[in-house]
């Protein structure tokens, strides 16, 4: 099978080096190179795009970027109007809007630069095509290519636009708050300023309440993610093995009952769990009525109990998924391996450790990694059940709080947006480190020869 080398076109610098004067001019006037080589439609499109970008820059872009440096300084003014007996207000700057417009302007600038690059490359490729074939591709030919060699362009453009507009841009917007003092403290909600890395320094320090809260919450987050991931994985696998055991009847029925719990939306079941495990909740009431206990069990009122309870609840929520996946894999393990093992006289334990487990780990390592990262960001299970409590850590977090639930409390409940953004970025850093490490580790583990 011959590997098709894909046509990626030449880079922009090569184009500038090897191209004619027209290519250089295409950097200034987009589409010029195309127009000169008789690619009228393409050239006009580039020109129109340039007109749009330039118009935007002149009209509001420059203003936005200028304001971005100071994030606004004019406060709201009020004037007493004695005849009507009212105060009249003139609105001032709002730093949040300035920040948003500034970031969007930067995004458009980046977009403009990409268009510039495309214009240069396009001019160069038109030139090359002219030299080789005596003519440059017409617009119809370009459209056809979009449905063939360059199909990825047409298929990916809308999804990527969606991701940029609704995920990437908001992310950058929120992250930029980490470098400001946008917070309810010191009344910095309407007008705030850039403070550089001050917030990061405070978060990472070992002294100071913010730093100690951060390290404490981080510690529990890591412990939780490890405990949650492995407990789900192992218990799910054991359950799958158990049900898969030859002698069990009604396999589909058992699987159905265990998976049923996931069918109900999580936020409902988790809120129900919270109600049920309160000191006056259904479980304690039931156990007290049956006479098994006298005092209510401290599911969410004692730190150790609360931590174990949330891990157990997470098992309840996550095992169904693990069950499904491991069952699928178990059923695809070649039976010959088991046959030959039995012929060799191996008992169930040996088959498990020598065949089943390695096979499973091999196939599901990527799943384990995504599961681990998912658990670090597992908001619902903690926030809806224990709400991060029972005991406070500092004044803003609790001792079952993860970084992500703490982030929620900081931003939504307390309005400390700058610190919240810092925590968000720190979560990302933690996850990146964790992912990189696990990929390295699993890479060395994925020794295919050793398995075979």
């Amino acid at each position, binding site marked *: 099978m011959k590997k098709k080398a894909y046509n990626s076109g030449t880079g922009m610098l090569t184009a500038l080096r090897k191209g004619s004067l027209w290519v250089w001019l295409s950097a200034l006037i987009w589409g010029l190179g195309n127009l000169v080589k008789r690619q009228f439609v393409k050239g006009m499109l580039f020109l129109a795009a340039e007109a749009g970008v330039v118009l935007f820059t002149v009209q509001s872009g420059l203003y936005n970027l200028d304001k971005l440096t100071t994030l606004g300084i004019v406060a709201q003014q009020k004037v007493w109007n004695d005849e009507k007996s009212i105060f009249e207000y003139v609105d001032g700057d709002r730093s*949040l*809007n300035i920040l*948003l*417009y500034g970031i969007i302007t930067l995004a458009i600038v980046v977009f403009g630069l990409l268009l510039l690059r495309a214009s240069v490359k396009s001019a160069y490729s038109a030139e090359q095509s002219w030299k080789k074939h005596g003519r440059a591709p017409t617009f119809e030919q370009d459209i056809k290519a979009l*449905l*063939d060699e360059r*199909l*990825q362009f047409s*298929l*990916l453009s*809308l*999804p990527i636009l*969606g*991701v940029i*507009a*609704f*995920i990437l*841009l*908001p*992310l950058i*917007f*929120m992250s930029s708050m980490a470098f400001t003092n946008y917070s309810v403290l010191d009344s910095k909600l309407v007008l705030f300023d850039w403070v550089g890395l001050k917030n990061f320094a405070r978060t990472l320090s070992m002294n100071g309440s913010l730093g100690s809260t951060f390290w404490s919450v981080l510690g529990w987050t890591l412990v939780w993610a490890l405990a949650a991931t492995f407990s789900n994985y192992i218990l799910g696998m054991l359950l799958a093995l158990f*049900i898969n*055991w030859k002698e*069990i*009847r009604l396999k589909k029925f058992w699987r*159905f*009952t*265990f*998976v*049923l*719990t996931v*069918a*109900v*939306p999580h*936020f*409902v*079941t988790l809120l*129900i769990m919270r*109600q*049920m495990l309160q000191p006056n909740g259904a479980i304690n*009431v*039931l156990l007290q*009525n049956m006479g098994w206990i006298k005092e209510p069990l401290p599911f969410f009122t004692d730190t150790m109990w609360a931590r174990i309870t949330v891990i157990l609840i997470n098992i309840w929520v996550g095992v169904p*998924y693990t069950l*499904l*996946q491991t069952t*699928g894999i178990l059923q*695809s393990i070649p039976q010959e391996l088991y046959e030959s093992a039995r012929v060799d006289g191996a008992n169930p334990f040996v088959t498990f450790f020598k065949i089943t487990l390695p096979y499973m780990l091999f196939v*599901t390592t990527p*799943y384990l990694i995504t599961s681990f*990262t998912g658990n670090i960001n597992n*908001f619902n299970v903690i926030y809806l059940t224990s709400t991060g409590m029972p005991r406070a850590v500092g004044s803003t977090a609790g001792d079952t709080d993860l*970084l*992500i639930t703490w982030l929620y409390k900081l*931003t*939504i409940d307390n309005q400390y947006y700058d610190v919240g953004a810092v925590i*968000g970025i720190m979560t*990302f850093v933690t996850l*990146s480190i964790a992912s990189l490490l696990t990929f390295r580790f699993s890479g060395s583990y994925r020794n295919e020869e050793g398995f075979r």
Partner: protein
Amino acid sequence: MSRQIKAKKSAWQKKPLHKRIGIILAHAVLALFAFLWLIPIFWVILTSFRATKGSYSSTFIPTAFSLDNYIKLFTDFSVFNFPQMLLNTLIVAAATCVLSTFFVISVAYTLSRLRFKSRKPLMNVAMIINLFPGFMSMIANYYIFKMLGWTNGPLLRLAMIAVYSGGAGLGYHIAKGFFDTIPIALDEAAMLDGCTKWNVLKKIIMPLSKPIIVFTLLNSFAGPFKDFMLAKILCGPNKDYFTVAVGMYQMLEREYIDQWFCSFAAAAVIISIPVASLFLTTQKYYSIGFSGSVKG
């Protein structure tokens, strides 16, 4: 048929006693475990039929049953308009699932089949973006929609659809795994016959991908039913556009919990039915991503 039953019977009787006891014990343990596992679900259903209102009950099983809680959802509109919230959720979910599926399939197919320079970098960027906590973008999204003017009136629906499906392209993994299992020989045969890649996608791959399309459709349909945070942030004071999750979450606030707790359970049962049936129909596809990669 009777021969099979006879064969099974004799196979059972052939087993030594301790093995038979072991098997029965195993089934008993499994049954007990399954029962405990389902207790919260039982409790929700029981509570939804409970006659006495309020969040506290001194018995696990209600002493009196009634349908009032369900009726209240559909007749008492003083605080929550449940049928309207249900309708809103259905509309948003329908549009979201179509748009999401289109995005997911496009991205998955492209990354699975097509080869281009920025393929690996795009996959890495997607993975990195996924590492950020999801709702850091939530509040920011509100401000972006406010800038576009989509935060009031019917355009609010558009905003909700956009936010539920906009980032759908990042969740391509299961679909990509599926496409990876379709033999590339099919593509090559078609292209030798002169098909463009678009035609290969349309005429050959799509018909084969019905399972994964159905899976993605149903999966993204359930999304808007489960989200209570994003919808609340987007809707704000526009009560007419609330989804069920927002309303249900509000039912547990201190002013309403006493009157509405059992109706909350009833609402939970009502929305669980479509979500559950969707999930159960698609559960076999969850394992496709893995068994597929093993076979391939």
